[in-house]
Structure formats: C-alpha cells, structure tokens
C-alpha cells in the first residue's frame, strides 16, 4: 500500500496525474505545430510523384496542354499512354516494352552473379585460413571507395578492344558484377563470419570439406543476408543509368529502361505525353519491392548506401 502512495507522490508534480510515459505521449500529440509541419512535409514530398501518377492516366492531349490537377475539375482517364509506350512499334516510338525486357535481362543476372561470387569469397575470407587473408580482405574492403568513374574508361577499352563484347548483355552483367563485388563481399563477410564456430567445427568433424560446408551450412544460414543484399543490388542495377550508358551501347537490343527514359526526356517537348506513363513503368518494379519487402529493402539500402 505504502508503495502505491509513494509512486503517487512522485507523480504528483505531473499536472494530469498520469504516469510519466503517458504524459510524454500526450505532450507529443498535443504539439500541434510539429504535427502540422510533419503533415506539410509529407504532402510536399508526395505530391510530385502523385502528380506524375495522375498524369500518366490522362489523355495525351490533356497532358500536353494542362496540369494534372485539372483532373479534379475535368475527370478524364485513359490507358492509352501505357499502350502507346509499351507496344507501338516504329523507330520514333518509345518502345518501352522492349526496354523493359532489357531491364529484366540486365538486372537479374547482375544481381545474382555478384551475390554468388561474393558469398564464395566471403566464406573463404571468414573460414579458410590462409596467409595474407587479412591483407587481401582489407584490399577488397578498400575498393569500395573507388568511384565507378575511375574504372569506366579502361574497362570499356577492355570490353571493346580485348573481348569485343561492348554493347552486349554480358558486358553489362560483368560490369555490374565487378562494381557490386566489393560491397557484397564486405557485407556477406560480416554476416558469414558471425556464424558460430561450433557449427562450422561440428561439420568439419563430420568430414565435410569446404564445398560441402558452403552448400550445406553457409548458404542455408545466410539466406536473410543474401535476400537483403540481393534486393539492394537488384534495385541498384535496375535504377542505374551510368553503367548502362557506358556499356550497353544505347540500342534497343540491350539498353535498359533508364537509358531510354533519359533519352526521351532529352526531347521533352516532343515526348511530354509519353513520359508520365513511361516513368511509371520504370518506377513500378522498385515500388513493388519497396512496399512488399520493406524490411529487407531498408536493411539492404542502409547497408549499401555508400555504393557507387
């Protein structure tokens, strides 16, 4: 009983007579200015994307001649833009269907290859003892700080003069794989080296060699890390413009969506009506990933935010 009284006594200075935690919540909820500012920021941040989305469903002539907000006065919707950018053929059309396919063909291997190679290397750095292991790992780690720009020119020369693959899918895959490796190795190493030594030891006592260990123990245990890093790498490739510009050759055979869209914006006046639907086509994949896999997405993004 006296305990309760004592607690009440401590709480007394509090005008509402509530516990300190509740009071804190109240205090925040009642600071109207802060709430208003937050809502203002949220609205300002959302309107540009919302406007583009609305615009993509308006008839082509409307897009060219009036702002998207007119939809509230004069509601007219059409799916024509999407049909246009996706399927209409001919040299002058947006042809985004083909570029969408290119983006898929570019992004999936470009996410898969570095993850596989990096998980192998990360395992070796973490669990195979060899002289110089630490030094090599530090070198790989240090490579993260080299901006892409430092590698573009010589790598392009290797692709075009030595291998003769410039402007093909494999060129883009290899470029993305190389640029993704340092970060992927580093992040996967962080994860794989945290696997308890007992687990590794037990497998080794059972006679597992490195290959078996890798497939039976390391890979299954690393699935969450592989998913996060894989998603990050996939989105990075999907959203990339620079690597695509340099290595894809810029044709409808190989170039991804981002490159075609950048091209279309270059002649904004002529392509005004195509751009909202086109841009949304490129945004839809990251947005689906973002809203459905937000946890993995945030984790991967935060881990890889220094890439590039």
């Amino acid at each position: 009983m006296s305990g309760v009284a004592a607690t009440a006594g401590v709480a007394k200075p509090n005008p509402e007579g509530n516990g300190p935690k509740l009071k804190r919540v109240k205090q925040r909820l009642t600071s109207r200015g802060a709430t208003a500012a937050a809502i203002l920021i949220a609205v300002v941040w959302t309107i540009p994307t919302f406007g583009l989305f609305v615009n993509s469903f308006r008839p082509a002539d409307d897009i060219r001649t009036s702002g998207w907000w007119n939809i509230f006065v004069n509601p007219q919707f059409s799916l024509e833009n999407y049909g246009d950018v996706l399927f209409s053929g001919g040299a002058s059309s947006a042809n985004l269907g083909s570029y969408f396919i290119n983006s898929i063909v570019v992004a999936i291997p470009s996410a898969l290859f570095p993850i596989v190679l990096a998980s192998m290397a990360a395992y070796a750095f973490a669990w195979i003892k060899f002289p110089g292991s630490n030094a090599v790992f530090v070198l790989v780690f240090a490579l993260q700080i080299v901006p892409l720009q430092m590698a573009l020119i010589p790598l392009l020369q290797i692709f075009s003069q030595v291998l003769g693959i410039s402007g093909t899918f494999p060129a883009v895959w290899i470029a993305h794989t190389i640029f993704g490796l340092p970060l992927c190795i580093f992040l996967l190493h962080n994860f794989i080296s945290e696997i308890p030594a007992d687990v590794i030891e037990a497998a080794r006592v059972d006679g597992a060699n490195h290959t078996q260990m890798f497939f039976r123990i390391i890979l299954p245990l690393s699935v969450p890390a592989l998913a996060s890093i894989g998603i990050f790498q996939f989105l990075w490739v999907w959203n990339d413009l620079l690597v695509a510009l340099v290595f894809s050759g810029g044709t409808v055979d190989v170039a991804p969506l981002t490159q075609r869209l950048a091209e279309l914006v270059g002649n904004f006046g002529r392509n005004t009506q195509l751009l909202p639907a086109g841009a949304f086509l490129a945004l839809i994949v990251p947005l689906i990933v973002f809203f459905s896999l937000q946890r993995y997405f945030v984790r991967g993004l935060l881990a890889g935010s220094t890439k590039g």
Partner: protein
Amino acid sequence: MSMMMMPGMLAGAVPFAARGDFWGALWEKFGVFAIGLVAFIAVVGLVLFLADRAPKRGRDFLQLLAFVAPAMILLAVGLIYPAVRTTYLAFTNRTGEFIGIDNFVWMFTQPDIVTTLGNTLLWVALVPTISTVVGLAYAVFIDKSRGEKVLKSLVFMPMAISFVGAGIIWRFVYEYRATGFEQIGLLNQVLVWLGLEPQQFLINSPWNNLFLIIVMVWIQTGFAMVLLSAAIKGVPIERLEAARLDGANAWQQFTNVTIPEIRGSLVVVVTTITIATLKVFDIVRTMTGGNFDTSVIANEMYTQAFNRGEFGQGSALALVLFIMVLPIVIYNVRVMRKQKEIR
C-alpha cells in the same frame, strides 16, 4: 569467365529488336538470359565440383583458390587495373601522349569546368545539410505519432526510385509555359495563382542549380529520416525524463540530450549523403544534360570522356572526384566502425 564467350555467338545476324520484331527479340533476349545464367551456374558449379574432388595433395590450396579466385580475378581486371590506368590517363591527352599536369591546369582555368567544380561544391554544401535537417525534424515530429509507419513510407519512398525517374517527376513540376498560356508544371501554376510571373526554373542560371539540388534533397531526406528515427528511438528515456524534471523544455531536451545521443548517426548520415552527392550524375544528366551552367564533376567526366572522346580530361575529372570522395569515405568508415564497437 564463360559469359565472355557468348557474344561471339550473338554477333553476326541483324538483331531482331533493331528490325522492330518485338517477339523475335524477346525470344532472342531470353535466350541470352538463359544461356548466361546456365553458363554462369555451370562454371561456378564445375569449379566447386573440381575443388571438391581435388587430389589430397594441395586440396586445401585448390579449394581456397576455387572460392576466392573468381571474385579476385574480376576485381583485379575490372577495378584495380582500370583505376590505376585512369590515374595514368589523367596525365595524357586524347591521343595518349603524356602531357604532365596540363589536364589539371585546363580544369582550373577553363571557365566551364571551373563552374562545374563550383557547382559540385554548392551541391555538397547544400544537399547533406538540408536533407539531414529536414529528415531529423520530420523524424522528431512523427516520433510515436499515430500513423508513423505510413508517414515514414511517404518520405522514404523517393529513395526506392531511380534518379532518372525522379528527374522526370521533377521535370514536370518545373515545366514552364510562357505567360498567358496554361501552365502544366505545378510550381509555375502556383506562381501564377499567386499572381507572379512563371519562371524557367531549369534554365535561369545560377538559380537552376538550386532546383536540381532540391531533387537530390527530395531523395536523400528519406534516408536521413529513417536512420535518425532509429537513432532517436535509442535515446534512453531516463535521460529525457531527468532533463524534463530539471525543468528543460522540449527544445532544450532536444538540443541537450537527443542531439548528443545521436551524434554518431548524424555523422554517418551527413557523410553518406555527401559521398552520394559528390557522385551525382543521373539527375543532372536527365534534367539539363549539364547545360545552362548546371554541370557537376561526374556529369562533366562523362561528357568529356564519352561524348567528346577526351579520355585524358575525363580521367583527370574522375581522379579529382576520387580525391574529393576519399577523405570523407575514410572518415565515414571510421565512425561506422566505432559505432559498431559501442554496440
């Protein structure tokens, strides 16, 4: 790697896509896709299989090689060698002759390029500070409020989309029509509603730089907000309580308790955004192409090297970019490491 052998098979015939044959091209592309995946899996599988069956003598070494060599070869050929070569190219002209520091003299004397360097500094001064301040304020405002998750998603969303997509979104916001015509860009429409003259936001220098910077701020604020929000939630309630009992108001609690507690995260956020800002390319490329005095180093590097064939000057710009990024990355990594140790 085996993927490098395939283009040989692809060359030769006129590609379907170039002939406008969508379905033919689709088949062809997914053919390449499938061959690429199968070849990759086959090579990696074979390497690991051989390592598995390696002779007893030297097995450890062979297995080690199988795991490390593929990644290391790619990095050596595709990153280390190119970086060294770019450093060398920075001291050559377009025909490959060694010309000493001429490219750097050019960079700091050519008015266009000086503007480019100045713009980059403007970006670096504004983007990290504004993004961090707005992100932090937003994180504090919505902390523990109803609908916090939704409010977070709304501001974080731009982080998911490409810079190209962001460029298009904002191209529409900034679009200009002459006075008297109906505006299709929201910002100019707002000016008109307020009774002001519409502006060519992306053309009028030097203000156009600010409007490009806003796009980057729009993207990076979400990043700052998510990281700082997590940090704020880690501030011990007892400390805030103690400060409150000492008579500190909300603002004093924030500056005296919260800020010092999240200092480490603040440093990581600012440095990370700074690095991203130094390398910004796509936004400038899509929105102005670097015209109207809006170029930045990464964009100029691309223009010089790949549009004009000036590999020497492009390399010199890449090197300057590298030198600018270097100290920030090192600092960032050290802070991140320290934070990890504390945890």
